[in-house]
């Protein structure tokens, strides 16, 4: 049996709410990335409309804020599915068949990396190393890591997650 994580409830984006949640970083030196994480944790992504506000808050140009946001793999620009599934692509997982596992997961979900399933339940991403290299291959669903993953185990996990996502709607 595997742990079935609870779906995250993201708030709907509003500039007012966004401005509110990042105020705590205003006087912290160099805290733009903290603010971007906060926005993403709150809304599920970093909305374009928040950029000028962040620029003003940190006394930066909009280009600088855009540059930082687009540099880091973590920050997404549109709302993800209910769950974000990240599949490790690094060497230790490859040694345990992650290439084949990745294919199976893509098949199972019917999407490629950076895509969201039609029912909005899963967004698929790749990740390089989850630090679980002795129990490879590994995947991560939101903030929960799963080791010794197989195509069959993923199938049953995905089914449980789907059921939970639907149940909570």
């Amino acid at each position, binding site marked *: 049996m595997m742990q079935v994580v609870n779906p995250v409830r993201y708030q709907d984006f509003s500039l007012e709410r966004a401005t509110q949640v990042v105020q705590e970083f205003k006087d912290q*030196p160099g805290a733009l990335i903290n603010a*971007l994480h906060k926005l993403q944790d709150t809304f599920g992504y970093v909305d374009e409309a928040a950029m000028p506000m962040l620029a003003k808050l940190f006394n930066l140009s909009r280009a600088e804020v855009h540059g930082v946001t687009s*540099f*880091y793999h973590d920050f997404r620009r549109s709302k993800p599915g209910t769950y974000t599934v990240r599949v490790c692509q690094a060497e230790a997982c490859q*040694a345990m068949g992650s290439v084949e596992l990745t294919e199976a997961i893509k098949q199972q979900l019917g999407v490629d990396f950076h895509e969201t399933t039609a029912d909005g339940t899963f967004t698929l991403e790749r990740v390089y190393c989850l630090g679980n*290299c*002795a129990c490879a291959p590994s995947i991560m669903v939101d903030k929960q890591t799963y080791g010794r993953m197989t195509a069959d185990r993923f199938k049953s996990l995905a089914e449980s997650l789907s059921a939970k996502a639907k149940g909570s709607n």
Partner: protein
Amino acid sequence: MSIRVYVPRETTASSLGAELLVDALTTEAKYRGLDITIVRNGSRGACFLEPLVEVETAQGRVGYGPVQLEDIPDLFDADFLNGGQHRLSLGDVEKLPWFANQERLTFARCGIIAATSVEEYKAHGGFKGLENALAKEPAAIVQEVLDSGLRGRGGAAFPTGIKWQTVANAEADQKYIVCNADEGDSGTFSDRMIMEGDPLSLIEGMTIAGIAVGATKGYIYLRSEYPLTQQILLEAIANAEAAGYLGNNVAGSGKAFTLEVRMGAGAYICGEETSLLESLEGKRGQVRYKPPLPALKGLFGKPTVVNNVISLATVPVILEKGGKHYANFGRGRSLGTMPFQLGGNIKFGGLVEKAFGLTLRQLIEDFGGGTYTGRPVRAVQVGGPLGAYFPASLLDTPLDYEEFAKAGGMLGHGGVVVFDDTVNMARMARFSMEFCAAESCGKCTPCRIGSTRGMETIDRIVAAKNEEEREAQHIILKDLCETMEVASLCAMGGLTPMPVMSAVKHFKGDFQ
């Protein structure tokens, strides 16, 4: 009396169902009218035994593992709370050869104590190093670290004491201690394990560093792939603050040291120290030119110690037992112990802390038990994605910085990834280039463009119609790798050729 039951709160254990066990144990004990207290320790590092459940019995601490949810009723039936025999019984886990043959200095407490408890930390020797440090002049603290021979465990292996000395001698109104916890190398997890299992040792180490060089503020730059680690660190920092070990008056000394955890955002390059500093300042994680050294102009332009988690978490034991004691372990210029991490296709994977000098074979065969699949070992990558691939014929190389360099590899952060004989090394070489292309910061051309050209060239080698064509492409690849190696700004572009060229050297037959 309540019986103490240990269930690790740790990423690997959690990835195999440990959180489910916590609920099930609690429910089952209640149902049977038994009084238990669940203690959240870290992992002892034997990942193959996770989730490892231990019970404090009258005869001592006994282990059961790996425990699955369905084993719980069975374990209660076997009276595991009193050490009863069960299919999963391990007895005193410290007596298992896997543990008994290790030399644990940095990881001495990891997996044994409740991870974030100041009280248990102190009961196991914690804060003795800080106490000793506070009784010394700052220069004497640095001297102790110099005497230990400790070299940066992040991978570059630069002597930690010399870095500290440079920062200590710099004049500035503000200095910083930065902990590099952006453990991005595949096959490495020792940083995560110590932060989850004994976070106070890192906090103590950073505090000692602060006192030694005159820094009052520390940052831990933690990768975002470690959310559980973040929770545990924050909890440990709060506990240390409450107990007076962090803040304006560290352990009553009148000296100030505070800590902040900042999260990375999924960029491998931010493990490079100057790129990490840029990221900490809220910028794109692009590598800086050196000089100036971060030790003189680091975070926000101030003198900064940037050390890896393991380097800093090793400082307390050095100050507790003395630099000379630490230097008694290891050999040559590789002194002390190294927490090696065994991953990939390995039967008994996990963390093995051992003095430098054992061979790769001893690590993989004696500790690791060979491959998980039971097939022969064909290739081993040591030192992360920028480390060399070794063939089975090099397994007798001693694990030591200089010996590894001599054999054309690098020890790096001590990660060891094992592959069986089904691996295709041309595919792995291509992946190294692919990874570099995906993770390059883009500042220098050899890395940014070279990685993509490298991918294309390897594709052409594999697709070549005849030997002549293939050899011509091999010459291009070699030339490209040389350019990347000498002309890249940092180790990302500079070392990507290492796995690529080692794969070509030892496994050329795969490139067709």
